């Protein structure tokens, strides 16, 4: 069993890569995918800590996160489709009519 801190470091890396994706990419779908990554990082954290503490709260909660991530993707894609219809393209920096 590898020491838990490695897993935490790994999940932090995944989280940062997800955040990196969110900050750099202009495509709405990429935004969505990066957020998926971040949620997975959190899941990994939960599972790792669950073994650390020996209780199953973390694992059960990660199930919930899984479900809600899926729900979020569903709604997200719905919105992206509507975006596509209105702005003919899912480039996030195009949709800037509301500002200042």
């Amino acid at each position, binding site marked *: 069993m590898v020491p838990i801190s490695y897993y935490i470091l790994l999940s932090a890396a995944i989280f940062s890569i997800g955040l990196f994706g969110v900050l750099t990419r202009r495509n709405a779908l990429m935004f*969505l995918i990066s957020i998926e990554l*971040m949620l997975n990082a959190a899941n990994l954290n939960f599972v790792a800590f669950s073994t650390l503490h020996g209780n199953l709260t973390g694992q059960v909660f990660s199930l*919930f996160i899984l479900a809600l991530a899926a729900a979020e993707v569903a*709604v997200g894609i719905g919105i992206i489709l*509507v975006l596509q219809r*209105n702005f003919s393209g899912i480039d996030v920096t195009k949709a800037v*009519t509301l500002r200042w």
Partner: protein
Amino acid sequence: MSDLVLLLPQLCILSAALLVLIYNTIFRKSTKLTILTLIAVVGSFCSIASAIFLFISQSPTVTIFGDQLVVDGSSLFFSVIISSVTLLVSIASYNYIKPLQNQAEYYSLLLLAAAGMGLMASANSLVIAFVAMELASLPSYALVTYLKNNEGSTESGLKYFLIGALSSAIFVYGSSLIYGATGSLGFTAISESILNTPSLSGLLGIGILMVIGGLAFKTTSVPFHFWAPDAYEGAISPVSAFISSASKAAGFILAFRILIEAFPLDVVSSIGLDWALAIQILAVLTMTLGNFAAALQENVKRMLAYSSIGHAGYVLIGLAALSGSQDTLVIGASMMHLMIYGFMNTGAFLFIALAEHWNVGPTFKDYRGLGSKAPLVSIAMTVFLFSLAGLPTGGGFLTKYVLFMAAVGAGFWWLAAIGAINSALSLYFYTRLVKSLWVDPPISDLNISSKGIPVGIYVAILIAAVVTILSLPFFSPFADFAMAAANILIS
């Protein structure tokens, strides 16, 4: 069975939501909208009634479902706020969405979001908090993008969704770190484990701050506020009223509960994280940004959006001044402010809805002379605006000054001073709208009479106005409810 009775307020709204869905699938009749509105109204009304009844009869402080949910004074107080906002919004939406599509989905999403917020109010563990937040947010993303072929609506929906998703990810990651440090997710369990087995303080600190970040999104405090102006401006007005009042209130009660029960200041400061300082920074930034950005706005709805950010800043003062000596008064004051702010802000946005219904233009100039055209509603709007600004046309005056008083009492006179400067500036832009309503000469092409009086929006605005005005002379019920709730929360 007794547990479910305690959850009656949330259950009423939930059953109304499901009823709306069921009704929509079964009947295809034409008069569908009135029935839908009726269900929504009855649902939210009985939720308010049950919450008040529960508080008066039992004033419970009990945790249910394996202390995942707690039903106490503050949860009932906030479910009253949320349900009354839902009531007003659903009454007003009747006229607003009459010409639009997907009416049933609109109402169901509205009620589901309200249910989510109600559950946030009585969450007693990070699990419930996260799930309830998701339940509250997902429908709101859809509600903001309700007008599918309107650019503004889609753009604001997109921004709201993306920032919302990002914040919920941050929230979850934060809670994972907290779980890592304390081994449990229930608030009481967390505080006990921090107290007696403090470990991994670094991770715990980052976890707490990231959770605060997630909550900051919900309560539109800086730097997680960027979505708010665009979302409120883009969405249809009843929705922006709903989000800016109800979801903000839900966000705050969750923040109160997490920061007071899970991470009580005396416990947490031992590990070197005095989150009160973080909240103070957030409060000052939010107030200043909210009020200063609103000063030169051309679009009325955007001005109201920024003003609601400003008010979030005022409520944050309550949270920030916790480390002083007047804790119950401070928290009570911010709760009172949230209650009255709920009514004022919803009323103001519904007035914008009314203006949109009469397709009055979006800028201050287009509102010129509305006072003479629709005097009754404009008087109501003037009451809201001046009450928001802190003048004694309504309860907003009392709540704002009680908040400043509590801040001074707790020793944070500089917070009250910054609040005072901001509220003085807020008087400037609220009066700009009052000026265009009453003072400026009316522009010619404002023909309202042809459109007729939208009964729903009128009724909603007048209810909100009556409550705001009466809350000045008859402020004691609000005050006692809030102080009792704060008392339970603190002790």
